[in-house]
């Protein structure tokens, strides 16, 4: 088994242009903050609910968090302006700071999909990756939230297991002590690639999309192949409004945000 030392993974030439296969463009001008993407993502990826007390203490498990801040809080209430809603999920960085810090290769870079992977069964829960993520895009299973009987009812009421009918078999259900994050709906990526390979063709742009892009009523989220210049997501990313979060950290994220306004 020979190891070809010229591959970028050996040479660490981080100047390699963004590259990558899958990317996303989020138009903050269109995003109305309606949380449809958050609900769609939770339904698709078996993300559990955590209850009032834990949600209020910053432990809600949703993979997408819609951020908004305020401007002009000190002035007159008429001049107060809310910044554009900003859906924030894992940015699938090329140089992901969360990957080298994991002691057991649970957070690892997928060279074939050029995505940041979170291997649930390998994670031992040191949570260093979450500390090191500049976007705070990772959430942790503080308790057995996915086993609804265990966490939510005192007497393990069997009726509660009815929720489990809705679990998606393509996505592993995570137990307590495991870190999780947006995977760009990798189960959909793999299924589409599988289908394309069966038919002997490349995955067409727009043939499939992530749960959040599919649900977004304002079509603010566009997902596709960023290495294909004609794809919708590459065209959308061309505009001058496009920018990436914390680019100065050289993480090379795959999500481009289009600023609101004129």
């Amino acid at each position, binding site marked *: 088994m020979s190891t070809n030392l010229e591959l970028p993974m050996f040479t660490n030439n981080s100047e390699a242009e963004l590259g990558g296969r899958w990317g996303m463009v989020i138009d903050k001008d269109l995003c109305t903050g309606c949380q449809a993407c958050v609900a769609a993502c939770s339904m698709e990826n078996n993300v559990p609910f955590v209850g009032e007390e834990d949600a209020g203490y910053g432990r809600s498990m949703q993979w997408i968090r819609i951020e908004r801040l305020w401007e002009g809080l000190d002035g007159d209430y008429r001049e107060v302006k809310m910044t554009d809603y900003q859906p924030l999920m894992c940015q699938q960085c090329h140089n992901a700071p969360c990957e080298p810090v994991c*002691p057991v290769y649970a957070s690892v870079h997928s060279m074939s999909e050029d995505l940041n992977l979170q291997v649930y069964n*390998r994670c031992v829960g040191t949570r260093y990756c979450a500390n090191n993520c500049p976007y705070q895009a990772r959430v942790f299973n503080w308790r057995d939230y996915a086993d609804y009987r265990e966490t939510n009812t005192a007497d393990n009421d069997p009726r509660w297991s009815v929720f489990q009918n809705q679990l998606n078999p393509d996505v592993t259900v995570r137990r307590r002590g495991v870190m999780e994050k947006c995977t760009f709906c990798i189960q959909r990526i793999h299924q589409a690639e599988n289908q394309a390979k069966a038919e002997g063709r490349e995955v067409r742009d727009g043939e499939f999309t992530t749960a959040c892009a599919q649900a977004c009523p304002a079509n603010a989220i566009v997902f596709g192949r960023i290495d294909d210049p004609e794809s919708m997501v590459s065209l959308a990313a061309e505009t001058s409004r496009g920018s990436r979060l914390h680019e100065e950290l050289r993480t090379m994220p795959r999500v481009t945000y289009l600023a609101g306004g004129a």
Partner: protein
Amino acid sequence: MTSLAKPLARPHAEEHEDPREHLMHDPLPRGKMNEMVMEAMHETNWKFWVVTGILAVLVATCLGYAWYYLIDKGLGVAGVNMPVFWGIFLVDVVFWIGISHAGTFISAILRVLKVESRRPFTRAAELMTTFGLVQAAISVFMHMGRVWLSYWMAPIPNERMIWPDFHSPLMWDFMAISTYLLCSTMYLFLPLIPDMAMARDRSTGWRKTLYKILGLGFRGTEGEWKNLTTAMNLFAFAIIPVMFSVHTIVSWDFAMASRPGWSSTVFGPYFVIGALHSGMAAVAIVLFLLRSTMKHYKYFIRPEHFDTIGMLMLLVSMAWAYFYFNDYIVPWYGGDVWDKLFQEWAEKGPLWYLWYTMLFCNIVVPWSILWNKKWRRTPWLLASAGILINVGMWLERYIIIPEGLTINRMPFTWRLYIPGVEIALTVGMFALFLLLYMLASRVIPLIPVWEVQEGQEAHLLRKIGKAEIPTLSELE
């Protein structure tokens, strides 16, 4: 045995000072010293058992049950949340590794520098290293989400053909702490062998069988001594870089993260000096406890030792202040906005009092007490200064880790950290440390008698022929 020689007159000793006041110049016959140490080990009054009982109960509930509860219910019962993913667990890890560094500092560095006043308490300090590291290891495993899978971090071949990832500072931690734990335990055991032999000769019953086993059949022949002293010297020289590397690696857990307030280049030495700072203070506390509770220890642990420790504490607190100022001024002056925010958050945020207490305990207390020789030599004053310094150092780590995690580059997620079950676990660990220490004092002679005697022999004046020359077997 009445020695024939006169004690070496110290050239620069003040007139009023009685040379006998120094342990090295106040020798007792070895047999007497053996007896005193063995007696101190045997005499256990009811007060000892009461305290051990309380500590055992504390450990069982605060540590035992609380950890089971944490594992069974998941980390949700602790206070950690998003964004403060590491809470008091990591503060404890750094704190206990800090404590453990004092042991190495005393027994290795002072031995290499041949500081004579380290002799009576090298073992007490070395014991602190081992037990401190045990606490650190416990709190590392406590904060892991799925601790029953932490064997995946060990680089052992497995059927999954997947190995741990040595890019991660946590793996360096795993390696460094396990190395340091192993080496300091070995380094604790080496000088213990002669004392075990001595104890073997003087005890009966189960103690005899225990010491016989631990004594390894040591007699004291030249070959054995030569091997032992060579090994100890090797250890003394080798464990010092390991000690420095361990706490640097622990600091790299934070320095390597690209977070505001954490990613700074000065964390390595800053944490090492911080470790020595809290370690020295802890040694002062332990010496005071030993001196005031153990029988005959007033002879072994004398004000001169507190004086040395005090000077070291003053020196190290100055070094710590230097490093803290270094870590503070650079981001304050030109750092990016997030670093400045972290500092503003630590000083003017809702937990501002922690910041001021830290500075008071780490700088004002040592600098105001330890410059005065008389204060330095009063054990209870030094011990209380040590306690305050340790509190200060614990808070310093509380500011770096939980408060450091509150401020990140996404203001939307900033959130206060309210400790949950970690408080019980921390109390449980302090209790475990004391419990281990007290039980060890019943089984192991805490004073390395042969080293003390060796030191005293070296300071005697020998009449060889006409000349009176110091047979400093040790000194050259």
